[in-house]
Protein backbone atom coordinates (compact mmCIF):
# COMPACT_ATOMS: atom_id res chain seq x y z
CA UNK A 1 0.00 0.00 0.00
CA UNK A 2 1.27 3.49 -0.78
CA UNK A 3 1.56 5.58 2.34
CA UNK A 4 0.37 8.67 0.55
CA UNK A 5 -3.30 8.61 -0.12
CA UNK A 6 -4.09 9.37 -3.71
CA UNK A 7 -7.83 9.51 -3.68
CA UNK A 8 -7.94 8.93 -7.39
CA UNK A 9 -6.09 5.66 -6.99
CA UNK A 10 -8.22 4.30 -4.19
CA UNK A 11 -10.33 2.08 -6.32
CA UNK A 12 -12.98 -0.45 -5.83
CA UNK A 13 -14.47 -1.00 -2.44
CA UNK A 14 -12.05 1.23 -0.53
CA UNK A 15 -12.80 4.26 -2.70
CA UNK A 16 -16.53 3.66 -2.55
CA UNK A 17 -16.50 3.15 1.20
CA UNK A 18 -14.53 6.32 1.67
CA UNK A 19 -16.84 8.32 -0.56
CA UNK A 20 -19.96 7.05 1.16
CA UNK A 21 -18.59 8.18 4.52
CA UNK A 22 -18.52 11.70 3.18
CA UNK A 23 -21.75 11.46 1.22
CA UNK A 24 -23.68 10.18 4.22
CA UNK A 25 -22.32 12.95 6.42
CA UNK A 26 -20.24 10.79 8.75
CA UNK A 27 -17.05 12.66 7.88
CA UNK A 28 -16.26 16.19 6.87
CA UNK A 29 -13.42 18.15 5.30
CA UNK A 30 -11.21 17.80 8.37
CA UNK A 31 -10.76 14.10 7.59
CA UNK A 32 -9.29 15.11 4.24
CA UNK A 33 -6.84 17.35 6.14
CA UNK A 34 -5.70 14.26 8.04
CA UNK A 35 -5.27 12.33 4.82
CA UNK A 36 -3.17 15.15 3.41
CA UNK A 37 -0.83 14.92 6.38
CA UNK A 38 -0.16 11.24 5.73
CA UNK A 39 3.13 10.72 3.92
CA UNK A 40 6.32 8.70 4.11
CA UNK A 41 7.34 10.24 7.42
CA UNK A 42 3.85 9.53 8.80
CA UNK A 43 2.68 6.48 6.87
CA UNK A 44 -0.22 5.54 9.14
CA UNK A 45 -1.18 8.96 10.33
CA UNK A 46 -4.90 8.77 9.67
CA UNK A 47 -5.37 5.41 11.34
CA UNK A 48 -3.13 6.55 14.20
CA UNK A 49 -5.15 9.66 14.90
CA UNK A 50 -8.45 7.78 14.64
CA UNK A 51 -7.15 5.17 17.09
CA UNK A 52 -6.07 7.93 19.46
CA UNK A 53 -9.50 9.48 19.11
CA UNK A 54 -11.35 6.31 20.08
CA UNK A 55 -9.08 5.69 23.02
CA UNK A 56 -9.35 9.24 24.30
CA UNK A 57 -13.04 9.64 23.61
CA UNK A 58 -13.84 6.48 25.59
CA UNK A 59 -12.45 8.24 28.64
CA UNK A 60 -14.31 11.48 27.97
CA UNK A 61 -17.58 9.66 27.34
CA UNK A 62 -17.19 7.75 30.61
CA UNK A 63 -16.79 11.07 32.44
CA UNK A 64 -19.94 12.40 30.86
CA UNK A 65 -21.82 9.19 31.60
CA UNK A 66 -20.83 9.47 35.25
CA UNK A 67 -21.77 13.12 35.41
CA UNK A 68 -25.18 12.30 33.92
CA UNK A 69 -25.87 9.99 36.84
CA UNK A 70 -25.65 12.83 39.32
CA UNK A 71 -28.75 14.47 40.61
CA UNK A 72 -29.27 17.31 39.98
CA UNK A 73 -27.18 17.61 36.85
CA UNK A 74 -24.25 19.98 36.82
CA UNK A 75 -24.89 21.51 33.42
CA UNK A 76 -21.82 23.70 33.48
CA UNK A 77 -19.60 20.70 34.05
CA UNK A 78 -21.39 18.68 31.39
CA UNK A 79 -21.01 21.53 28.94
CA UNK A 80 -17.31 21.68 29.72
CA UNK A 81 -16.79 17.93 29.21
CA UNK A 82 -18.72 18.13 25.98
CA UNK A 83 -16.59 21.02 24.76
CA UNK A 84 -13.52 18.87 25.19
CA UNK A 85 -15.13 15.93 23.46
CA UNK A 86 -16.37 18.10 20.63
CA UNK A 87 -12.86 19.40 20.10
CA UNK A 88 -11.66 15.83 19.56
CA UNK A 89 -14.52 15.07 17.18
CA UNK A 90 -13.79 18.11 15.08
CA UNK A 91 -10.11 17.17 14.95
CA UNK A 92 -10.90 14.01 13.04
CA UNK A 93 -13.86 15.34 11.10
CA UNK A 94 -16.48 13.23 12.85
CA UNK A 95 -19.38 15.25 11.54
CA UNK A 96 -22.45 13.45 12.85
CA UNK A 97 -20.94 12.94 16.28
CA UNK A 98 -20.00 16.60 16.40
CA UNK A 99 -23.56 17.61 15.59
CA UNK A 100 -24.79 15.55 18.54
CA UNK A 101 -22.24 17.36 20.71
CA UNK A 102 -23.64 20.72 19.66
CA UNK A 103 -27.17 19.50 20.37
CA UNK A 104 -26.08 18.28 23.79
CA UNK A 105 -24.51 21.63 24.61
CA UNK A 106 -27.72 23.40 23.66
CA UNK A 107 -29.66 21.20 26.07
CA UNK A 108 -27.09 21.98 28.77
CA UNK A 109 -27.63 25.66 28.27
CA UNK A 110 -31.39 25.17 28.33
CA UNK A 111 -31.00 23.15 31.51
CA UNK A 112 -32.84 20.18 30.08
CA UNK A 113 -31.93 16.88 31.77
CA UNK A 114 -34.16 14.94 29.44
CA UNK A 115 -32.65 16.53 26.38
CA UNK A 116 -29.14 15.84 27.58
CA UNK A 117 -29.80 12.21 28.38
CA UNK A 118 -31.56 11.52 25.09
CA UNK A 119 -28.94 13.29 23.04
CA UNK A 120 -26.16 11.48 24.82
CA UNK A 121 -27.64 8.11 23.85
CA UNK A 122 -27.85 9.26 20.27
CA UNK A 123 -24.29 10.54 20.46
CA UNK A 124 -22.99 7.20 21.69
CA UNK A 125 -24.77 5.45 18.84
CA UNK A 126 -23.22 7.76 16.25
CA UNK A 127 -19.83 7.41 17.88
CA UNK A 128 -20.03 3.63 17.72
CA UNK A 129 -21.38 3.55 14.16
CA UNK A 130 -18.52 5.71 12.94
CA UNK A 131 -16.01 3.50 14.69
CA UNK A 132 -17.32 0.42 12.90
CA UNK A 133 -17.37 2.15 9.56
CA UNK A 134 -13.84 3.47 9.95
CA UNK A 135 -12.54 0.10 11.06
CA UNK A 136 -14.08 -1.46 7.97
CA UNK A 137 -12.56 1.26 5.81
CA UNK A 138 -9.06 0.82 7.22
CA UNK A 139 -9.26 -2.90 6.49
CA UNK A 140 -9.78 -2.07 2.85
CA UNK A 141 -7.59 0.98 2.34
Amino acid at each position, binding site marked *: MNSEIDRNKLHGQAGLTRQSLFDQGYLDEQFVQLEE*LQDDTNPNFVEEVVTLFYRDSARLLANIEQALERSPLDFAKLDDYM*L*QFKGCCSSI*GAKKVKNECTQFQEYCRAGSSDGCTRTFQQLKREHSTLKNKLEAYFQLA
Partner: protein
Amino acid sequence: MPVKQRNGDQNDRFPMGLRVLAVDDDPICLRLLETLLRKCQYQVTTTSQAVMALKLLRENKDKFDLVISDVHMPDMDGFKLLELVGLEMDLPVIMLSAYGDTKLVMKAITHGACDYLLKPVRIEELKNIWQHVVRRNKFDSIGRNISNNQENNGCGATDGHGSTETNIYQKNERFGKKEEGPTR
Protein backbone atom coordinates in the same frame (compact mmCIF):
# COMPACT_ATOMS: atom_id res chain seq x y z
CA MET B 1 15.50 18.90 7.58
CA PRO B 2 18.13 21.62 7.17
CA VAL B 3 18.45 23.81 10.23
CA LYS B 4 19.71 27.30 9.59
CA GLN B 5 22.44 28.68 11.80
CA ARG B 6 21.49 31.53 14.09
CA ASN B 7 23.18 34.58 12.70
CA GLY B 8 23.05 38.29 13.42
CA ASP B 9 19.69 38.86 11.77
CA GLN B 10 17.28 36.43 13.40
CA ASN B 11 14.67 36.97 10.72
CA ASP B 12 16.83 35.26 8.09
CA ARG B 13 15.82 31.92 9.54
CA PHE B 14 12.12 32.20 8.93
CA PRO B 15 9.84 30.58 8.27
CA MET B 16 11.77 27.30 8.25
CA GLY B 17 13.12 26.21 11.56
CA LEU B 18 10.76 28.41 13.56
CA ARG B 19 10.95 26.98 17.07
CA VAL B 20 7.48 26.41 18.40
CA LEU B 21 6.34 25.17 21.78
CA ALA B 22 2.90 23.55 21.46
CA VAL B 23 0.76 23.04 24.55
CA ASP B 24 -2.53 21.10 24.63
CA ASP B 25 -3.83 18.61 27.16
CA ASP B 26 -5.82 16.76 24.51
CA PRO B 27 -3.60 14.10 22.92
CA ILE B 28 -5.39 14.13 19.58
CA CYS B 29 -5.19 17.87 19.18
CA LEU B 30 -1.57 17.85 20.26
CA ARG B 31 -0.64 15.10 17.79
CA LEU B 32 -2.46 16.89 15.01
CA LEU B 33 -0.88 20.23 15.89
CA GLU B 34 2.57 18.69 16.05
CA THR B 35 2.17 17.09 12.62
CA LEU B 36 0.81 20.26 11.06
CA LEU B 37 3.66 22.33 12.50
CA ARG B 38 6.26 19.84 11.30
CA LYS B 39 4.68 19.94 7.86
CA CYS B 40 5.34 23.71 7.91
CA GLN B 41 8.96 22.81 8.58
CA TYR B 42 9.02 24.29 12.04
CA GLN B 43 10.97 22.81 14.92
CA VAL B 44 8.34 21.58 17.34
CA THR B 45 8.39 20.79 21.03
CA THR B 46 5.18 19.53 22.56
CA THR B 47 3.84 19.17 26.04
CA SER B 48 0.42 18.31 27.40
CA GLN B 49 0.91 20.33 30.56
CA ALA B 50 1.01 24.09 30.97
CA VAL B 51 3.17 23.65 34.05
CA MET B 52 5.74 21.76 32.00
CA ALA B 53 5.57 24.39 29.27
CA LEU B 54 6.48 27.08 31.78
CA LYS B 55 9.29 24.97 33.11
CA LEU B 56 10.73 24.51 29.62
CA LEU B 57 10.42 28.21 28.88
CA ARG B 58 11.93 29.25 32.18
CA GLU B 59 14.86 26.93 31.67
CA ASN B 60 15.78 28.57 28.43
CA LYS B 61 13.49 31.05 26.75
CA ASP B 62 15.98 31.53 23.95
CA LYS B 63 15.19 28.03 22.76
CA PHE B 64 11.77 29.09 21.48
CA ASP B 65 10.39 31.69 19.10
CA LEU B 66 6.71 31.22 19.72
CA VAL B 67 4.20 29.41 21.93
CA ILE B 68 0.87 27.94 20.82
CA SER B 69 -1.45 26.96 23.61
CA ASP B 70 -4.96 25.65 24.17
CA VAL B 71 -7.23 27.83 26.28
CA HIS B 72 -8.80 25.03 28.32
CA MET B 73 -6.30 23.01 30.28
CA PRO B 74 -6.73 21.15 33.55
CA ASP B 75 -3.48 22.07 35.31
CA MET B 76 -3.48 25.77 34.46
CA ASP B 77 -5.83 28.14 32.72
CA GLY B 78 -4.50 28.99 29.25
CA PHE B 79 -4.93 32.70 30.00
CA LYS B 80 -2.74 32.36 33.06
CA LEU B 81 -0.03 30.73 30.97
CA LEU B 82 -0.44 33.48 28.42
CA GLU B 83 0.04 36.17 31.05
CA LEU B 84 3.06 34.52 32.59
CA VAL B 85 4.76 33.96 29.24
CA GLY B 86 4.14 37.57 28.31
CA LEU B 87 5.51 38.86 31.60
CA GLU B 88 8.46 36.57 32.03
CA MET B 89 9.61 35.70 28.55
CA ASP B 90 7.98 38.21 26.27
CA LEU B 91 7.42 35.59 23.57
CA PRO B 92 4.50 35.73 21.15
CA VAL B 93 1.67 33.43 22.21
CA ILE B 94 -1.11 32.11 20.00
CA MET B 95 -4.22 30.77 21.70
CA LEU B 96 -6.21 27.79 20.45
CA SER B 97 -9.74 26.81 21.25
CA ALA B 98 -12.76 24.94 19.95
CA TYR B 99 -14.78 27.97 21.11
CA GLY B 100 -14.79 31.07 18.94
CA ASP B 101 -16.86 33.09 21.34
CA THR B 102 -16.11 36.82 20.89
CA LYS B 103 -15.71 37.37 24.63
CA LEU B 104 -13.12 34.62 24.78
CA VAL B 105 -11.23 36.01 21.81
CA MET B 106 -11.34 39.48 23.36
CA LYS B 107 -10.05 38.08 26.62
CA ALA B 108 -7.17 36.39 24.84
CA ILE B 109 -6.19 39.50 22.93
CA THR B 110 -6.43 41.78 25.96
CA HIS B 111 -4.30 39.32 27.90
CA GLY B 112 -1.66 39.67 25.21
CA ALA B 113 -2.24 36.84 22.74
CA CYS B 114 -1.00 37.76 19.29
CA ASP B 115 -3.59 35.54 17.63
CA TYR B 116 -6.53 33.25 18.37
CA LEU B 117 -7.11 30.15 16.26
CA LEU B 118 -10.20 28.01 16.16
CA LYS B 119 -9.89 24.25 16.33
CA PRO B 120 -9.48 22.27 14.23
CA VAL B 121 -6.53 24.31 13.09
CA ARG B 122 -5.74 24.33 9.40
CA ILE B 123 -2.27 24.25 7.96
CA GLU B 124 -2.87 27.50 6.06
CA GLU B 125 -3.22 29.36 9.36
CA LEU B 126 -0.05 27.85 10.78
CA LYS B 127 1.96 28.73 7.70
CA ASN B 128 1.70 32.40 8.65
CA ILE B 129 2.45 32.34 12.35
CA TRP B 130 6.13 33.16 11.86
CA GLN B 131 5.01 36.70 10.97
CA HIS B 132 4.14 37.33 14.60
CA VAL B 133 7.74 36.72 15.56
CA VAL B 134 9.18 38.95 12.85
CA ARG B 135 6.72 41.69 13.70
CA ARG B 136 7.66 41.55 17.34
CA ASN B 137 11.39 41.59 16.59
CA LYS B 138 10.86 44.58 14.32
CA PHE B 139 8.92 46.52 16.93
CA ASP B 140 11.53 45.67 19.52
CA SER B 141 14.23 47.20 17.35
CA ILE B 142 12.13 50.27 16.56
CA GLY B 143 11.68 50.80 20.27
CA ARG B 144 15.39 50.47 20.85
CA ASN B 145 16.25 52.82 17.98
CA ILE B 146 13.91 55.47 19.27
CA SER B 147 15.33 55.44 22.77
CA ASN B 148 18.86 55.41 21.34
CA ASN B 149 18.07 58.43 19.18
CA GLN B 150 16.60 60.28 22.10
CA GLU B 151 19.69 59.65 24.15
CA ASN B 152 21.93 60.75 21.31
CA ASN B 153 19.94 63.93 20.72
CA GLY B 154 20.13 64.73 24.37
CA CYS B 155 16.35 64.77 24.72
CA GLY B 156 15.36 64.20 28.28
CA ALA B 157 11.68 63.96 27.48
CA THR B 158 10.29 62.00 24.55
CA ASP B 159 9.57 64.17 21.54
CA GLY B 160 6.12 64.10 19.90
CA HIS B 161 7.01 61.68 17.13
CA GLY B 162 8.96 59.31 19.32
CA SER B 163 6.30 58.91 21.92
CA THR B 164 3.65 58.29 19.27
CA GLU B 165 5.69 55.40 17.84
CA THR B 166 6.21 53.72 21.17
CA ASN B 167 2.63 54.35 22.20
CA ILE B 168 1.33 52.69 19.03
CA TYR B 169 3.62 49.74 19.75
CA GLN B 170 2.30 49.46 23.29
CA LYS B 171 -1.27 49.82 22.14
CA ASN B 172 -0.80 47.08 19.54
CA GLU B 173 0.72 44.82 22.13
CA ARG B 174 -2.14 45.41 24.47
CA PHE B 175 -5.01 45.21 22.03
CA GLY B 176 -3.28 42.86 19.65
CA LYS B 177 -4.13 44.28 16.26
CA LYS B 178 -5.61 41.35 14.44
CA GLU B 179 -4.88 41.57 10.75
CA GLU B 180 -7.19 39.77 8.40
CA GLY B 181 -5.62 40.55 5.06
CA PRO B 182 -1.86 40.02 4.69
CA THR B 183 -1.40 37.41 7.39
CA ARG B 184 -4.07 35.05 6.10
